[in-house]
């Protein structure tokens, strides 16, 4: 049984169709990387799975259980299984860094503040941030540091399923590699199921067991990470090599 099973997922905003009958399976303890052009709906897909956006049609099953249309109380309970790194970080700017990281532990699970702070500090260390950062506020950190704090927050409660929306964008190459290792560790050692979105092919190769490509609201190719260079799919090839010319027409308008 797959951990996540998506069938016929559709989502439009007004007249703009973003997801158009998307099917996708993610196995337990697998690391799936989703690639695809900017604005193709990768973030929207994750938000639909989390119930942050209501799908127009389709089914999403987690551990075999339908989750579209759950009540808010059931949704709250289901969220205990999930961790999410938002593309923009989405740190709470009115509280300190360690409180951000410990938020799910304290508010979501009722852990006491002292024990939660210990865990928060160790997670911060794992993303390369020392205890001196813990007492600051999010606005006092650089963009890359904020991203790492957001990552620490996503994994703090050791969730079963973790979504990483562009975990390495905006990080220097060395720190990117530290984060890649951390994601791999979450999957291999802690046994989480991970879905990551990235534009960074080096990162994709490192963290993915399997890669899926989203284009025009559907998954147009998926396969083991090792086969990404021999996919035989012109869309995937164009994307992996980053050619401006090819079947994917970027919607660049000149006025």
């Amino acid at each position, binding site marked *: 049984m797959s951990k996540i099973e998506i069938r016929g997922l559709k989502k439009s905003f007004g007249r703009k169709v973003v997801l158009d009958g998307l099917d996708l399976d993610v196995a337990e303890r697998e690391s799936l990387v989703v690639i695809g052009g900017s604005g193709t709906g990768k973030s929207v897909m994750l938000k639909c799975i*989390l119930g942050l956006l209501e799908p127009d049609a389709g089914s999403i099953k987690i551990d075999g259980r339908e989750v579209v249309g759950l009540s808010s109380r059931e949704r*709250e309970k289901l969220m205990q299984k999930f961790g999410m790194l938002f593309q923009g970080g*989405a740190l709470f700017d009115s509280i300190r860094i360690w409180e951000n990281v410990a938020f799910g532990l304290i508010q*979501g699970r009722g852990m006491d503040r002292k024990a939660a702070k210990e865990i928060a500090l160790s997670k911060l260390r794992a993303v390369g941030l020392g205890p001196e950062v813990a007492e600051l506020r999010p606005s006092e950190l650089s963009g890359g540091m904020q991203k790492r704090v957001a990552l620490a927050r996503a994994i703090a409660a050791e969730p079963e399923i973790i979504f990483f929306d562009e975990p390495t964008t905006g990080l220097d190459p060395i720190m990117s590699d530290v984060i890649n290792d951390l994601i791999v560790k979450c999957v291999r050692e802690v046994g989480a199921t991970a879905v990551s979105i990235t534009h960074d092919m080096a990162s994709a190769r490192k963290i993915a067991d399997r890669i899926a490509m989203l284009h025009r609201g559907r998954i147009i190719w998926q396969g083991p990470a090792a086969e990404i260079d021999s996919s035989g799919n012109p869309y995937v090839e164009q994307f992996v090599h980053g050619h401006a010319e090819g079947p994917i027409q970027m919607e660049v308008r000149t006025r």
Partner: protein
Amino acid sequence: MNFLAAVGAAFLGFLAAAGRIVLFTLAALAAMARPPWYPRQILRQMIDIGYYSLPVVGLTAIFTGMVLALQTYTGFSRFAAESAIPNVVVLSMTRELGPVIAGLMVAGRIGAAIAAEIGTMRVTDQIDALTTLSTNPYKYLVVPRLLSGTLMLPLLVLVANVIGVFGGFLVSTYKLDFNPATYIQRTADFLETMDVVAGLAKAAVFGFIVTLMGCFHGYTSRGGAQGVGAATTYAVVSGSILILLFDYILTEAFFSR
């Protein structure tokens, strides 16, 4: 035909907005009924709404009381009824001006701040992040603000009443040559418990309205900085209008018999 269509569209839009506000309110009340509650958040909001609004509300109240005494004097002296000044001041303050002025000041100060804060959290995905951290945003963000607004505005109004009456007292005794003891005596004689209680009940309703408008417009804002700016404006404007509307409804309910 075009004109009718425009009127109809505006009316439907109004109904849709009213419906969304009602649904939002019901969801917030449902969230209020069940634990967890967040005492830290409630305390923070109470301090923000109650304590930090004191200077603004106090200043407006004292000038209101002073103006009230002066206007009553210039008007009432035409038919030699100056002695009614203490009654007019204390009744106007407790029944009407205390709650309305404090409500409007808090709509500007707190309604706007709530809409801006929650609106920013919306457009930067922080509200979604709350959900993924197993925290219900209604309970964590909306409920503490509604509770604090509803509880703190009556306290603010109580303070505003005292300060307003004191403003009237100052003008009457220093400028209009009232006897201080008589003034205080007449103020106390004419005031009934019902006047104060009705004023405080109004204040509680206004506190709920102001924080509700702030939360609603912030929560439903979209589209970046511009969207947050619009939410702030809507929160203040709709909060102020609803205060005046409900002021009439409540006055009708309490005092017209």
